[in-house]
Each structure stands twice: as structure tokens, then as C-alpha cells.
């Protein structure tokens, strides 16, 4: 399940561009399945500066912990507070209610440079 309208990173994050200056970030269905039941999400802070490719949070499952990587360089404008009480949303609805944070990229053209659905799918099959 790799929605066509989204952009992706090789680290299994998706990015959804909308009408605002910010883009929404989450992890892919493939990533949530690999992680297993997510029990804690360590969110970045609103206002934090994040750098593409650098860790900006953590996803913890019953058996392991994984870094959440920033897909873009920019400023965090919102986080999904629902994940504090209901981290399982990342498993049950990774592209919807399981979104993780919004980021306003320093350079909007970075979004276009991310993988498209076909390119991301190829990394999974490669």
C-alpha cells in the first residue's frame, strides 16, 4: 500500500504536500508493519529545527526502538498529540490518523526531490 499522491524517503517516511506552507509527515505502511505494534512515539517539539536525514524522534515497539528521520530540513509546525495516548494509530492508519508531525521546509523544492510512489516501491523490491 503506497499512495500515489505522496512523496517518500528511503527511510520509509511519507510526505504529504497540501495548500499550506507546511507538509505532513508519517511513516509508511511497510515501516509500521516492520516495526510491529508501536507503543511509544517520541515526537519532535513544535518549533524545533530539523535537518533532512537526521533523527528527530523515536518510534518504540514492544521489541525495539527505531529513529524517526526528518525527511526535509525545516521547522516543525505541529505534532500529532493523539499519538501520546494512542500510538497504535501509526499501525492502524499510517497515512491518515497516524500522521506524526508537520514541517515547514526551508526550501520547498526539497519536497519535489523526494521519491515518488513508484520510486519508493522500487526501494522495497530492490
Amino acid at each position: 500500500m503506497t499512495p500515489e499522491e505522496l512523496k517518500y524517503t528511503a527511510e520509509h517516511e511519507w510526505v504529504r504536500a497540501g495548500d499550506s506552507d507546511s507538509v505532513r509527515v508519517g511513516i509508511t505502511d511497510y515501516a509500521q508493519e516492520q516495526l510491529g505494534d508501536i507503543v511509544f512515539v517520541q515526537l519532535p517539539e513544535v518549533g524545533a529545527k530539523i535537518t533532512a536525514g537526521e533523527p528527530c524522534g523515536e518510534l518504540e515497539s514492544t521489541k525495539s526502538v527505531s529513529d524517526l528521520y526528518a525527511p526535509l530540513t525545516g521547522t516543525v509546525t505541529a505534532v500529532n498529540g493523539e499519538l501520546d495516548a494512542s500510538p497504535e494509530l501509526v499501525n492502524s492508519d499510517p497515512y491518515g490518523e497516524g500522521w506524526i508531525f508537520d514541517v515547514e521546509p526551508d526550501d520547498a523544492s526539497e519536497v519535489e526531490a523526494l521519491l515518488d510512489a513508484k520510486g519508493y516501491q522500487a526501494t522495497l523490491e530492490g
Partner: protein
Amino acid sequence: MTSDLLTSPLHARHIALGAKMSDFGGWDMPIEYSKTGGVLKEHAAVREQVGVFDVSHLGKASVTGPGAAAFVNSVLANDLQRIEPGQAQYTLCCDDATGGVVDDLIAYLNGPEDVFLIPNAANTAEVVRRLEAAAPEGVTVRNRHREFGVLAVQGPKSAEVLAALRLPTDHDYMSFAVASFQDSPLTVCRTGYTGEHGYELVPRWDKTEALWDALLAAGEQFGIRPCGLGARDTLRTEMGYPLHGQDLSLDITPNMARAGWAVGWKKPAFWGREPLLAEREAGAKRLLRGIKAVDRAIPRAHMVVNDEAGKQIGEVTSGTFSPSLREGIGLALLDRDHTEGDTVYLDVRGKAAAFTVVKPPFVDVRTRG
């Protein structure tokens, strides 16, 4: 997936169920059935209804011949004279020179000339090697790893599932009965690693698949779920049951692990008797304790444990998220003066997270219910 890993007789069943497979002691075993379950759902099934685990990777070995039970009793740590034929016992195979734990295992006493052992998968060959080397004339030690499967049916509805297959269910905790399944002998033990009422079934290798299918079919009305080794780990951690290789090892003695109850201290001989008695007398420097998160953090094996001043006082040996309590729990080897009720600090990826030292189990034990 080509590899040197051994496979259970249920390998094809696990693949068909979409299980996430992983190397476990040299065996390719299901960690979780991610398509239908996942660790949390599997854990809940065992606590609330019933789950079935394939643990066929566990070792199987026989010690037989005149004096077999006496021989086992003279080398393994627990006192086999505490049990009668038809009963099982948790015991330890210690290193004679150091008292460190080579393996923890269950011994099934069939009679004075027949003891059946279930060691851990990765340690079976070593346990068998040590027993063989020490066995007196007439006592035979056989590694029977791939002669039998092992299925664990665990949870409050486990007796009803077995009863539906007309298997015995009423025997006491830590005892076993030999039944018949498809004209072949099937050992039904009241044992487990989850803290729930449950059974471990030992069918012949070639009957394991049919038994698995029969259990899932009979258990459907009771909400049975296939459960992987991920849930087995969260369930046993909630009980504070040690896992060899983490909470018990060649470097962690029964005194340190507070498993002295599984040692027959009054026996004249068993492997590791001298060093273990000396350590018991002197007091082990570190002891295995339960830890429970104060902050929102999950302990993981090998995390450093510090005191308030930041001085290292121990190390985490097992840790997980407790699905029942919805918080981080674990076992840690701590300097002996850090006792229940104390606050300790784990180094969680560079941040100090507060934990309370507690006495396991973390949730109620219901094995005898």
C-alpha cells in the same frame, strides 16, 4: 529465505499465516503473526482467552538406563527427589567450575530409569554433551531435538480447548499425563512460560502439524490465536521469569538470578556446588531485580543502570513494554544494596529515566488456577 536455520514442523503453517520469522537459537521461528495479530493482540489473547505457541525449537533429550534419575540428580541443580514420577521440575545445568548457568531446563521424571529433558534450543547440544561426558556406564543420553514438536496452549480457556480434543486437563501444575493423539503418544504437561493456566504438549514430530490444526480448530470458539515468540517474551517478562542468555548465563549464577529455590542445596553433589555454596555464603555482589518505569521509557537489555549520583550500579538484562500495565518493565542485575522501593536511573539513549526497583511478578500469576 535460504539459510542454515533449522525449521519447525510447522514452518509452512507459519509462512501461510503471514508470520514474521526470525532466528531464534538457530531456528527460524515466528516472532508474531503480523497479518492477523501482532504482539499486543497475541499477549491479550493469552491473558484473557487462550493462545497457542509453536515452541518446537526447544530441545528434547532423554537420559535412560539403570540409575538415570540418580545420575541426573547428581549433576543438575534442583533436587529431583522433591518430585515423583509423572511430575516435572524446573532445574539448572551449572558449570562445575564457576557455578554459571549453562542452561535452565525442565526435567520430566518418567521413572528412576527415564528422565526427559527440555533445554533451550541454543543450549541443547552443550547440555547433551556435558551429560554424555559424565554419564556412568549403562546410562544413555540421547539428543532427540527433532523427534518431537512442542506446542504451548496457554490462557484461562486452555483447559477447555484441550477438553474439546478429549485430552487430559485435570492434572496438577508441573505434572504431566501421557495421552494419545492420532494413535501416537502425546505428553500433556501442566507447564508454561506465561504465568497463565496452561499446557505444553509434546507430540511426535510428524504429528505436530495435525495437532496444531486440531488445536486451532477446537479453540476457535474460545477465541484462540496463534502466538509468536514476541508475545511469549512480553508474557514471561511480566512474570519475571528469566530467559537464558539474558537473565541467566555462564556469567550469571543462580544466586545472582535469585533462582536458589531451583537448587538442591542439601544434595551432596551437583555441578557448581562448591562455587555456588561459597557465593551463597559470601552473598552475591549483584542480584536480579524487577524494574518498573516511573518516566515514560522502555528498558532494553544491556542498558546501564545508575544511582542518583550517576554512578553505575547495574545493567538491564531484559526489558520490554508491558502490554498488561502499558508501561516499561524489566529485569536488571543491581548491586545488592539497591533493593525494592529504591529509585534507579537507566541510561536510555543518553537520557536518564527513573525506574522503581520492584519484586516480580509484575502482574498476578495464575498458573495454578
